[in-house]
């Protein structure tokens, strides 16, 4: 089996969690309280990260699809595998569409959306076909670049920041902030449930805890910092922008020397969306190959990638619909995939694990009693 190091896995998780969310922004519906929503979403995710890691630790070396086969009957496990295959597939399509829409609106105005999506999906398919080891290695090189670009842009935009935009605190009321916190929880943090299809490649039993928690904290810090920057630069108008980070960094002016730096941030958007869609396609292909019991998932990557691209093309009619779906529909749509089914799998895995352990200890104690 192909193995990835903890460092590679952490890099994949960070880039995955940043993909899409740095394009659309998180918690922007509560404007200057978005950072509180970000922290709330992060804190809410901690128990779920531990739960996902626990599932992986109980069945170390097995992916979600193999775990489902072990825990449930043939029919139930096939249903669970199909559900997660769809979720990964759909998530990949949403990410592709986010980036396609971003590129179409900001730079490639006259290029048909399908052309942008197909061009982007070629590298996604290539990465997914190459396997998780290659995605991991790309991530270790890409993450420092992404962080450098973001920090560099944030430092350059210091002059445009108005720190009083952050006040007054809790102006949106606790209920609205809590709802925005739940949105941040489901997009992007709890999307990391798809890693249950990948972390069988981790080398050590407890690596999943380290990877989930470290990845979550690094990406959380980056996202919350970005939320602060967007609020400081755009103020209450932050929710009027479909791509707030792009608009904030577009305001950088350092004399006549450095202007219109928003193009630079597109590099980070492209890299993170590429990693996220590749991971989603990889998991979706593994799911399909698990359903049909195929010897290698690679044989279906091209066609699955193309279907994902077409799904990304037909899924929304316009950017308004995309934004509305991400903020209002997606958090509720994702509940079964991110909360209910993993919770069910975890409880069932714990019960089976305890039964197995008690049976083993009984077997060990029986010969002693005979003696």
């Amino acid at each position, binding site marked *: 089996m192909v193995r990835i190091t903890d460092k590679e896995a952490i890099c994949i998780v960070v880039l995955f969690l940043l993909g899409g969310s740095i394009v659309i922004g998180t918690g922007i519906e509560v404007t200057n309280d978005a950072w509180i929503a970000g922290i709330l979403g992060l804190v809410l995710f901690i128990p779920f990260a531990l739960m996902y890691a626990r599932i992986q630790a109980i069945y170390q070396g097995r992916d979600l699809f193999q775990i489902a086969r072990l825990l449930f009957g043939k029919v139930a496990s096939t249903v669970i595998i199909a559900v997660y295959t769809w979720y990964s597939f*759909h998530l990949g399509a949403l990410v592709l569409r986010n980036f396609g829409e971003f590129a179409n609106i900001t730079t490639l105005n006259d290029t048909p959306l*399908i052309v942008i999506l197909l061009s982007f999906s070629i590298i996604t398919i290539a990465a997914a076909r190459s396997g998780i080891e290659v995605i991991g290695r790309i991530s270790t090189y890409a993450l420092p670049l992404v962080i450098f670009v973001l920090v560099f842009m944030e430092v350059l935009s210091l002059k445009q920041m108005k720190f009083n935009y952050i006040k007054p605190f809790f102006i949106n009321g606790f209920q609205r902030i809590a709802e925005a916190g739940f949105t941040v929880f489901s997009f992007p943090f709890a999307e990391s449930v798809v890693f249950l299809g990948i972390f069988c490649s981790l080398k050590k039993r407890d690596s999943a805890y380290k990877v989930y928690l470290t990845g979550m904290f690094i990406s959380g810090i980056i996202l919350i910092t970005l939320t602060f920057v967007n609020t400081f630069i755009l103020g209450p108008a932050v929710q009027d922008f479909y791509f707030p980070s792009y608009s904030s960094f577009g305001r950088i002016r350092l004399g006549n020397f450095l202007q219109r730096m928003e193009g630079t941030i597109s590099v980070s958007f492209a890299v993170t969306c590429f990693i996220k869609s590749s991971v989603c396609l990889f998991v979706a292909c593994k799911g*399909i190959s698990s359903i*049909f*019991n*195929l*010897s*290698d998932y690679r*044989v*279906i990557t*091209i*066609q*699955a990638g*193309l*279907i994902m691209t*077409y*799904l990304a*093309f*037909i*899924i*929304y*009619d316009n950017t308004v*619909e995309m934004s509305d*779906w991400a903020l209002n*529909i997606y958090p*509720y*749509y994702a509940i079964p995939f991110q909360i209910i089914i993993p919770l069910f799998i975890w409880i069932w895995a714990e019960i089976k694990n305890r039964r197995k352990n008690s049976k083993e200890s009984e077997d060990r104690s029986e010969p002693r009693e005979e003696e």
Partner: protein
Amino acid sequence: MFVIVFVGYALLGIYEFVPLYKEKMWKEFYVNLGLTLISFTVAFLISINVKIQSPARLFEAIIYTLSGK
């Protein structure tokens, strides 16, 4: 536009199916064939500007029904 789709899928077919056929990997061959048929159908419909219903609407309707909004 649909000519490009036909040519593209013909080339993809040669690239993907010939090795599977030669190695007699029948299960992989048929699953891939099924996916190719779905993929080709959608690509063809997009190429002739047929509006395909988005699955997002279905989920949206289900969520609105459940939440009673």
